[in-house]
């Protein structure tokens, strides 16, 4: 019995909690990508860099707040800085739209041209963030580290395995749930949100109904930028901020968006969790978990790890490929993207 409990705790600690947190971060990123895809109809390669940019602004604001002695202990100052980061990311995104995308948008160029343009912006912003804040790893979480620490958990329960629940993990989950709830309320319940869905559904008919395309596009960028700033900050707070890593987040985010059926917000969330859980589950060494569940004589000798951690990005890629070939419209999607 105790072995079983230990196994459950172990699984929660190393699989469920990290994957849920990571899933939230990926889902928020994928929501932004999917929103831009459904309104502007292209895959935005610059989204990872927007996340990076937003996180950078958060870090600067945190530094500023810390210098001014303002904090919201036990919570991370980053949460207080988030509105500034969101505002800055929105401003920059709207400027890129005004100066870069709009030119191509009004000419209704093929989506692939927009993709190339977004890759150019990705190049630009990757340089900008690395120039401004530097390419180094930065840890900016200054909140209380644990809600429950592994040691505390062990002492209280008397189990051999500990379960820790970090503040940043809780913050990630709460913020993500709040964002998603707000987004869906906006899309489903408000008139402006509905015009966005209408535009995504049928652009020509939206025009005939008098929906202002510029307004919808601005709104889509605004939401995508907010989501990017939030997702980036949450990820950086939970792990650490390194510009290079944000570039690598693009693959799991695209995989999540495509698995969910590009343009389908609910799907993007499901896709985020699919990617996160697959990544964590396939790179986790199950040796210890199995040792709790089988008799001692059956103890495995190997690590029981399906794939080395280095290959975790390959997992999102394979999810992407499998979905593209078996269900090109996504796991939930009916409408072709």
């Amino acid at each position, binding site marked *: 019995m105790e072995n079983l409990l230990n196994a459950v705790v172990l699984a929660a600690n190393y699989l469920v909690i990290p994957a849920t947190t990571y899933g939230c971060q990926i889902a928020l990123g994928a929501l932004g990508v999917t929103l831009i895809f459904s309104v502007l109809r*292209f*895959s935005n*390669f610059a989204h990872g860099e927007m996340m990076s940019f937003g996180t950078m602004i958060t870090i600067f604001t945190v530094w500023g707040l810390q210098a001014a002695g303002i904090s919201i202990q036990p919570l991370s100052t980053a949460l207080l800085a988030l509105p500034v980061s969101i505002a800055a990311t929105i401003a920059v995104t709207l400027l890129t739209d005004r100066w*870069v995308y709009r*030119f*191509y948008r009004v*000419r209704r*160029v*093929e*989506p*692939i*041209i927009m*993709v*190339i*343009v977004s*890759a*150019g*912006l*990705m*190049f*630009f*912003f*990757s*340089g*900008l963030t*690395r*120039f*401004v804040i*530097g*390419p180094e790893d930065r840890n900016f979480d200054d909140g209380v580290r644990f809600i429950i620490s592994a040691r505390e958990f062990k002492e209280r329960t008397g189990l051999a395995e500990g379960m820790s629940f970090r503040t940043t993990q809780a913050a990630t989950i709460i913020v993500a749930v709040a964002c998603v709830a707000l987004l869906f309320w906006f899309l489903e319940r408000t008139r402006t949100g509905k015009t966005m869905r209408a535009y995504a559904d049928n652009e020509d008919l939206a025009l005939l109904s008098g929906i202002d395309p510029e307004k919808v596009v601005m709104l889509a960028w605004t939401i995508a930028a907010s989501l990017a700033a939030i997702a980036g900050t949450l990820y950086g707070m939970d792990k650490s901020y390194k510009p290079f890593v944000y*570039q*690598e987040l*693009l*693959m799991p985010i*695209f*995989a999540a968006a*495509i698995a969910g059926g590009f343009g389908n917000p609910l799907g993007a969330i499901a896709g985020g969790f699919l990617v996160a859980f697959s990544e964590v589950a396939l790179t986790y060494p199950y040796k210890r978990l199995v040792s709790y569940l089988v008799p001692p004589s059956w103890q495995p000798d*190997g690590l029981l790890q399906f794939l*080395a951690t*280095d*290959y975790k*990005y*390959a997992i*999102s*890629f394979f999810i*992407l*490929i499998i979905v*593209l*070939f078996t269900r090109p419209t996504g796991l939930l999607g009916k409408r072709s993207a």
Partner: protein
Amino acid sequence: MKLLHSRIFLFAVMALLLIATGLVQSWSVVTTILNLCLISAIMSLGVNIQWGYAGLVNFGVMGFCAVGGMAVVLVAEPPVGAAWSAGGRGIAISAFIVAVAIAACLVVARKLKLRTRLKQLVLAAIIMIAIFLLKQVFGPATEAIEAVDPSLSGYLGGLGLPILASWIVAPVLAAGVAWLVGKAALGLRTDYLAIATFGISEILVTLVRNEDWLTRGVKNVVGLPRPAPYEIDLQQAIWFQHLAAGLGQPVDGFSTIFVKLCFAALFIPVLALLMWLSESALNSPWGRMMRAVRDNEVAANAMGKDIKKIHLTVFVLGAAVIGLGGAMLVTLDGQFTPSSYQPQRFTFLIWIMMIIGGSGNNWGAVLGGFLIWFCWVEAEPAGVWLLDLLTRGLGEQSELRHHLLANASQMRLVVMGVVLLVVLRFMPRGLIPEKRGQSFSD
């Protein structure tokens, strides 16, 4: 405007830029830049074949460069006998298992008439069995290989052939990988293809970085044999000392330039040959058909052209050229460093070269390779110089000044990004536009 688009004028300007650099900086710098310009031109040609001819978006250039680079190691390094005897059999058995598994999957997928669900189950079972068997054989074999003198080898080594042989093997290997990728991804919508190739290149680089038994991974392979003479030998050769004296150059400095010129002498014929092939191909009926397919896929389809096959051919050809470029780069460097493969440098920079030069035009792609590489290299000292000038007022102790100067090299990403966006907008067809038909933004 006509002058601006004339390729003789533009290449002359490029030559002048290089000469000016020689006068201002040094000839050693120029020869270094020149060699990389030549390699960049070849990579840019490869991307141009895919996007410019056929409109295929390959955001996985980096992956094919890495495969080409790996080919150099596999061809030119001497085989490590101890590693082969330690794990060679295991690797061979693993390869056999993989081959059998793939064959079995193909047979099940193509030949057997089963219900879809059942078929999927059988396929999954085959893969699971193969993975289980591989775990038994492959892991121990690679561990054994990697344990063989890890500080010096720890990998299987190569075939011990002359390094130039890799310039044939690399394109073939890259083409093989491209064929697999193309088979899988070319049916997709254009932006899915961009995402898929982007992902594949990340995976290829991860493989190269982590499969130590094959490539030594991040331990790098250094000291690859060189197809050009070594400086030290030159400096001791009587004829060379005479030559240097005759030109009024110091022997030491001239030997490094001479070596780089030897590389250039190897690269130029390759570029010339590729250029000749590309131009002939583009102006042949095949090339015209290619562009027709690119400009109007629906019409070409209606004409009964097998678009998928045509696309696969172009994709493979372009990847082969990129792979060759990757191999030449590793040959020039004399070392294979998997961690140096970054998408910015190896995928998007090459794209910028091709677009700025003029997509669809081979001369444009080559010019773009030269010009952008030149700017990429010179942007760094220029950025440092500019920032130094701008922040001088802050004083030597300024933290901001130190920070900016330390990160000045990142500025070139910003500059190149801006250049790309400006060209895309105001000169979408590039410096040397495609001769006729529509191109980029129409």
